[in-house]
């Protein structure tokens, strides 16, 4: 394979990957809206004011702001129920989200720590 062919291939691949990153960001926002907003609010404000109250605010949440991405991903994947619940409030157990509902947890964590906090 000649250099030109290699360069062309890399350009094409780059072109493929660049929009993919943009799509991932969009997907994370959509994924949040779909899987998280019911309990944590459309803008991460939580649902303390609604009944039943379902989840705490994630915007400004110290765990989201300061926690490691791995730890946040772990909560998404494993949920937080029973004795592991952090909040002595009226919230129910947080369900675990597997691959199907949250296919890209890294992107979702980035969204939680980034755009959601703005």
């Amino acid at each position, binding site marked *: 394979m000649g250099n030109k062919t290699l360069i062309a291939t890399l350009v094409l691949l780059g072109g493929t990957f660049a929009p993919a990153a943009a799509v991932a960001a969009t997907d994370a926002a959509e994924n949040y*809206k*779909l899987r998280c907003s019911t309990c944590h609010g459309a803008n991460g404000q939580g649902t303390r004011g609604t009944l*039943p109250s379902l989840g705490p605010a994630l915007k400004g949440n110290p765990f989201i702001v300061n926690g490691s991405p791995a730890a946040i991903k772990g909560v998404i994947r494993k949920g937080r129920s029973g004795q592991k619940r952090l909040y002595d*409030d009226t919230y*129910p157990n947080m369900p675990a989200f597997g691959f199907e509902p949250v296919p890209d947890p890294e992107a979702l964590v980035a969204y939680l720590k980034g755009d959601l906090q703005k």
Partner: protein
Amino acid sequence: MRFNWKSFATAALGLAGMLLVPIDSQAMPSFARQTGMNCNSCHIGTDNVPNFTRTGRIFAMRGYVRPTVRERLRHDSELVEDLPQYGGDYLALNWDDFFAARLISELAQGGRNTSGVKNDWTSRPLARMAFFYTGPITDWLGLWTELGYLGNNSIQSVTAGNTGPTGLNFYAYDEYRLSTGMDIGPNSFIGMSIGNENPNVVTQWVFPAGLPDMWGNGQGGTGRFKEIMAISFHGFFNDMFWAQVAFVTGDDNISWSDGSNQYAAFAWNIFRTTRNDLWLALELYRGRDSSTQMTSVKNSFICPGACPTGVSDSSLSITNQRGGTNGLIVGAPVVEVKDFNSYKLRIEHSVADRGPHSWILSAVLHGTKENHVDGGKLERTILGGYVRYFYNRTYGFYATTWKDMTYDYTTPAGVVRKTYQKINYALTLLWNPAMNFSTHLVISPRVQNRVFDDERSKYLGKGKSYSLGFEYNF
């Protein structure tokens, strides 16, 4: 082959280990499938009927529409944000998520009757099978419905000589409730529901089962009770105060025109967290359409005239005795109720996952007064208590106790006849290897009748019963 004790012991230990390790089930009933939340979010145990966390109770009060995963109301993967949420283009059909079932099987049951004679040792493999179709129909309308098969036979007796009753060995029941709610401010909503159960199902104060209940129409449809119609208007305000009024066709028949009943409830949610939830509630129920506490009223849909040989209403459990808490008096006259007034004062404390501990404590003071058409009257007051405790949501028990504080019948001639019965109590041991699979051992050390105090010789109190079985929700 020589018996290998080491292999046997290893296998037995392995099996015991498998049985003792709590397993997380993948088979979740409908709400869990719809919301992704596990059973323990809303319940502190489901055997034999649900007990609730604060989330579960308010979820029911609000009408089963929140939380919901809205895209589940449509086709998988179809987002709804830019589409109408309901209307003529909207198909609210996703029954595989909404569908759930419940199986209760009694593996062994026995005991003694009130005379002390030993009962047959029997099994009821299909003691109860219920199907649910439950969840939000639209964004604002929720449905609860249950269709049930209640096995009521002893054909599967493991004691020789017991052939059981005839083939008429079961009855079905069904209940439903359509509910809606509307937010009217932060932590406040109003709602409405219609259904065929007593209106206290809106708050789920029909539970815990085992507490005194002289109303008892918690089951609708054909079966033990006549079908009623209930319309409820209610609201929850400032995350703290519950108010409800409801109208019911009645316990005696389904006609509005010959008298109906009215229900009201007021509650104060004092502590309001999942780990510390305390409710104080007053329920009132009155009206002109009720059967009496004292006697059973025949209400057979299978043999409205004469029953076939070997079949009776009582053997089919299709007599209509008002209330879930037995109020029958041996030798009581059959009377017609002119009107009645009753109340239920309740305090209930629930704690979910405070460390390894979860519990529900509940106490009820429940009273009623009946005025009879013939001029007689009846006054009854019951005090009851209930406790359910779970360790790690796996090992637990519940216990109930209740006693008539007063139960007096006044004849039309004005003679007051007091009644006699000892305190009632029962204990159930629970083991939940999964949150939707529960095994139970129910022990009732005292099974007794109730007599007029001036006929104490008719009292029989040597009965006892036990039942070992399991409940599976899937």
